[in-house]
């Protein structure tokens, strides 16, 4: 099978859109999810900012966020998306639901990463007279770095999948290309190329994430 230059050009453009959507959404979701995850851990009973009620409320919000199917969330927040970026169609608009959907996801991943930090080390810092802020910045986060990177990798890969869905409703990217040409116009070649590119993309993200995490792991 010969792949025409036109298909390659379309695929290349779609890949760039996907990378942009996933990249921006991953970064924004980490920015939003990291503090949430930190709070989930530190407000738990017996922890440095123990606050059972706040812990409970945060957990509830995160669970609600995670239980809404992405496709419904995407439609439901269209007014918010339009208010924020002026439109509900296109790559930029797709970043909004992607980020919103990923924030609670990141929060849970961060929570589980920080819960792996040796409680004895946290206790040592408390015994040194560290403030909660110092414990977070000097102990929890640095100690969890390899695990946080692996969590971020999972988020990015999940967002690659979500972005295909966002693409289907006009977000652009590889998913959009696969549906519009590959499926609706029976262009098997486009379908195959986009799937192949997605496979390589996911592999690449996983490889980079694992490599980076391993480099920083001092275990």
């Amino acid at each position, binding site marked *: 099978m010969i792949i025409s230059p036109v298909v390659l050009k379309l695929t290349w453009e779609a890949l760039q859109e996907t990378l942009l959507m996933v990249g921006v959404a991953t970064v924004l979701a980490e920015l939003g999810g990291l503090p949430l995850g930190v709070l989930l851990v530190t407000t738990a009973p017996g922890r440095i900012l123990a606050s059972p009620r706040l812990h409970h409320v945060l957990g509830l919000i995160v669970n609600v966020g995670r239980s809404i199917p992405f496709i419904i969330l995407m439609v439901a927040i269209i007014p918010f998306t339009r208010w924020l970026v002026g439109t509900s169609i296109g790559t930029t608009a797709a970043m909004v639901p992607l980020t919103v959907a990923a924030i609670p996801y990141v929060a849970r991943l961060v929570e589980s990463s920080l819960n792996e930090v040796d409680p004895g080390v946290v206790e040592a810092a408390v015994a040194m007279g560290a403030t909660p802020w110092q414990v977070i910045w000097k102990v929890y986060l*640095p100690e969890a770095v390899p695990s946080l990177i692996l969590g971020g990798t999972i988020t990015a890969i999940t967002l690659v999948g979500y972005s295909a869905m966002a693409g289907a409703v006009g977000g652009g990217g590889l998913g959009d290309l696969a549906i519009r040409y590959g499926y609706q116009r029976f262009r098997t070649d486009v379908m195959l190329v986009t799937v192949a590119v997605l496979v390589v993309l996911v592999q690449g993200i996983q490889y980079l994430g694992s490599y980076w995490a391993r480099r920083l792991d001092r275990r």
Partner: protein
Amino acid sequence: MAAPRAGRVVVRLQGVHKGFETENGRIEALRGIDLEVRAGEIYGVIGVSGAGKSTLVRCVNRLERPDAGRVEVDGVDLTSLEGAELRRMRQRIGMVFQHFNLLRSRTVAGNVALPLEIAGRPRAEIRQRVQELLEWVGLADRWASYPSELSGGQKQRVGIARALANRPRLLLCDEPTSALDPETTASVLDLLKRVRDEMGVTILIITHQMSVVRAICDRVAVVEAGRVVEEGPTSEVLVRPQSEAARRLLGRSGPRRQPLPDRTPPPPGQEARLVELHFVGETAKEPVITHLVRRFPVMANILSGQIDRLGGTPFGVLLVELTGKPGDLERALTYLREVGVIIQEWHEEVEER
């Protein structure tokens, strides 16, 4: 054998209670602890697992908040401290942990720097202090290593250096050698002793091993089920344990476990007495037994013996069978008491312990 430096009270616990709510109901970990640690001494707290030792030491820097009672450090009642005041107090108390609790993401130097960073020291001062401390614990060449690259003993040296970074006057050690082999234990205990001798730091050390108490403690408290059941200078507690708990702990590490050799029965008219003789300090250096048999018509059969050091003081235990006429035996024992030997009579059933 209270250390000569021992002076003002550094740590005072009064009626400290602490309980924990668990799924199986409430556990009373501390049931009214009274304790005083004086400046410059190495004070041991010994007890079996679950006795409440860790809870006790964690009350001293308020990692646990007592339910009742007072915890004073340098005359300040910690139970009422909060926030910044409590943190400032904690910066002045070092703590060493059984499992080291080093940050695996930081190098040796980074770990020792942590308490200084937390205290907000300037960078240049931190570098100099870290260097100084690592030299002091003999790890200057390992400053760039990560904890995962160190042996247990080296990790604990880093833990001790870290605990000393802010120049505390008090060091809390929770089973600092329980994760180490005997040889490494000895070197870590030596280091702790240097901390006291060279830096004048008061040490409160938790352990379940009598050998640790024997090696470095000036005074010791025996804790059982959340209470101090016995307290005193190490030599006294070791020699004349008053509590069942102390005797059990001694039995585990002491020299008395060996079975007694077979002994010939005494000749007619004479009698044999089994005695354990404890020599502390100067008496341990003198040929007391030789004098004894020259001055009294008795025979001394040494069944077992052990010479040890308690802190810096020589400390010997001999299990001796004395044979002679009853009157001569009494006079011999009186002589021993007069020269400062502490005597414990052995009865056959004592062997069981």
